[in-house]
């Protein structure tokens, strides 16, 4: 054997060992920025896909008040490409550089029984955000692009057997859009913890802690809360306001459930429905102060019937904790 060949083999071995030592592998930026990858693994967001262990550059985060999804455990991550950073953009969304991604995995079951159901990705490309749903396979080895969405039979933590709906690509847009443009929903500065934001700044991945950060209450604190209104308003902001705001999918209703809205009628107080159809449930107002049982808002949150239930998509079961908080908020309003 010639010396060159020996050297070549040694070099290859060295490179191979470096490759394993160098794990985790970086995110596949090309997959984030072009095409529609057929599988979740192509992005390389995870060092261990099944365990949902993030790779370098992918940061896990949580929300003060999360969106209800049938009781699913949700694993949330942001990816910002090397050499770029998030920017503080007031009290609204963080500003994501092109090439970023937001990843959310929905899981049911605990410990070794945990099953990953779907992973939704939002990819920030040169021409805007693209939302894609991925459905996990039975062996839990990878998730495949599910443009048309799908249904999965499962049992929720509350013990309800449901046909869980994975949204199709357009349904992602139903919620993730404002003025016809796809936008992220979750990582708003007001719904992110100050600790996490400061950690991101310290790591150089965010330029500054945004003003208005961390102002939504932590949902877990609601049972010992002195005042219920902030929890109810945070719940409505996170679960409803992506559609019920000017420019949102339900803007034609005139109902505006954003945290920063303070006009009672815009929030539904003594507001008559317009296009609610049988969703009104025989009630005259979205919110009748003091009377949750006569408020359309509660009626629709407590329904499971398509055409009545709110939100229209994204859940198959009633959020008992969420409706209890909204009920209490309405019950404590001074009757008019």
């Amino acid at each position, binding site marked *: 054997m010639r010396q060159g060949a020996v050297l070549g083999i040694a070099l290859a071995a060295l490179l191979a060992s470096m490759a394993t030592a160098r794990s985790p592998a970086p995110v596949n930026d090309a997959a984030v920025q072009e095409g529609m990858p057929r599988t979740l693994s192509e992005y390389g967001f995870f060092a261990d896909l099944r365990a949902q262990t993030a790779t370098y550059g992918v940061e896990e985060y949580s929300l003060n008040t999360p969106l209800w999804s049938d009781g699913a455990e949700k694993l949330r991550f942001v990816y910002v490409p090397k050499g770029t950073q998030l920017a503080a953009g007031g009290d609204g969304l963080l500003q994501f550089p092109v090439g970023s991604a937001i990843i959310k995995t929905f899981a049911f079951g605990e410990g070794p029984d945990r099953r990953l159901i779907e992973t939704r990705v939002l990819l920030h490309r040169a021409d805007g955000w693209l939302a894609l749903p991925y459905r996990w396979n039975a062996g839990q080895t990878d998730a495949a692009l599910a443009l048309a969405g799908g249904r999965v039979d499962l049992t929720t933590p509350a013990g309800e057997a449901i046909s869980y709906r994975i949204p199709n690509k357009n349904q992602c847009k139903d919620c993730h859009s404002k003025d016809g443009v796809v936008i992220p929903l979750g990582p708003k500065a007001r719904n992110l913890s100050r600790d996490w934001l400061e950690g991101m700044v310290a790591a150089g991945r965010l330029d500054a802690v945004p003003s208005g950060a961390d102002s939504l209450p932590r949902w877990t604190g609601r049972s010992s809360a002195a005042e219920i209104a902030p929890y109810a308003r945070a719940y409505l902001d996170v679960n409803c306001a992506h559609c019920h705001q000017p420019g949102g999918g339900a803007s034609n209703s005139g109902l505006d459930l954003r945290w920063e809205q303070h006009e009672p009628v815009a929030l539904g107080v003594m507001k008559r429905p317009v296009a609610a159809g049988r969703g009104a449930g025989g009630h005259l107002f979205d919110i009748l102060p003091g009377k949750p049982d006569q408020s359309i808002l509660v009626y629709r949150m407590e329904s499971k019937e398509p055409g009545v239930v709110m939100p*229209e998509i994204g859940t198959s079961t009633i959020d008992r904790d969420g409706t209890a908080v909204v009920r209490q908020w309405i019950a404590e309003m001074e009757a008019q």
Partner: protein
Amino acid sequence: MTRMNLICAAALAALAAPLVAAEHRVDAGEGAQERLQEALILAEPGDEIVLGAGRFALTDGLSLAVDGVTVRGAGPQLTVLDFTAQQGSGEGLLVTSDNVTLRDFALENPKGDGIKSKGADMIVYHRIRVTWTGGPKAENGAYGIYPVESTGVLVSHSEVSGASDAGIYVGQSRLITVRNSVATDNVAGIEIENSRDAVVTQNYVTRNTGGILVFDLPDLPVMGGGNVLVTNNLVAGNNTPNFAPPGNIVAGVPRGTGIMVMANENVWIEGNVVQDNPTAPFMVIAYTQKFEDARYNPFPREVVIADNVTDLGATDPDLPGGAMLLAAFGGTLPPILWDGLQQDPDTPALRAAGDVPGWSLNLTRQGQSLGEAQPGPLAVPTFGQPWDMAGIGAPAELEARIR
């Protein structure tokens, strides 16, 4: 063909190409939900999605978000999107993109609305049928054909029955034509709400609670409805008991209403045949509820009931004290009913043809109870020249699409 001709032909073909960039065929049968939804997602602007004849069994709402797409079936009796087993979504089909043409297919039994198009400018509904097959029921979905917040809407040769709110409902939109369509067995047959520059013409509207409604409501992003022509419609036999779930504004529409205008300006009603609507062939009223919206005008202004073909009037009014009213008027209520409310004397709520009798509730303030009515004969000014109607109705480009 010479080389030059070839180049010309190629250039022409390139110009014509965006009209139908590609055709995607979807047939009924196994996996129709996924196959049809994928086609709607993967379509490119200019593409046509062709639905085969047959019954598509669907379990979830469909949605289209690509501009310039045509969805074409084999005909409103032959291609049926069947939502009887629908488990999710607030409508059968949701369209959120511009320049879309929907034609030649039907939806049956959607759980919420039939087809909703929101912020979808320049949309055509042609030969679309939406049917709740069990007839009028409170459990039926709200709206059949439901364009909202859009500029440029053409609904033509379509048919809706069974809607628990309005069969064909256009809301918060501009430049609208609803024409050559049939609305039966709905609470409201055709409703134009918070919209401007609309033409409702040559429709057959029967067996609804109320036939054609032109409304303006408060607390909505888009308000100030007006410039509406209601002409050459057959509005007959609208006498279905109101089956709207309580709480909806149309739940207050009396059974037996023909053409009703509430809080709107410049509504011209002419050339309609309005027969057998036993509460009121024509009704013009102010908004009845309390409101705080400073942008809102609750009064009708310059509503014109010009020459129409109507009967003697109402013989079985769905109004408080109906029997006493009938007796007072000699057994038949005159064809035009006005509540007596107007913004100011210089802005008449209503003008009418001199030879068509009417009656007024003679209310004196917005929101007043009907119990305080002082019924009496109608005395309103006659109408003059129609206003300039150019620029009202769907843009010509939409008409051209279905020729």
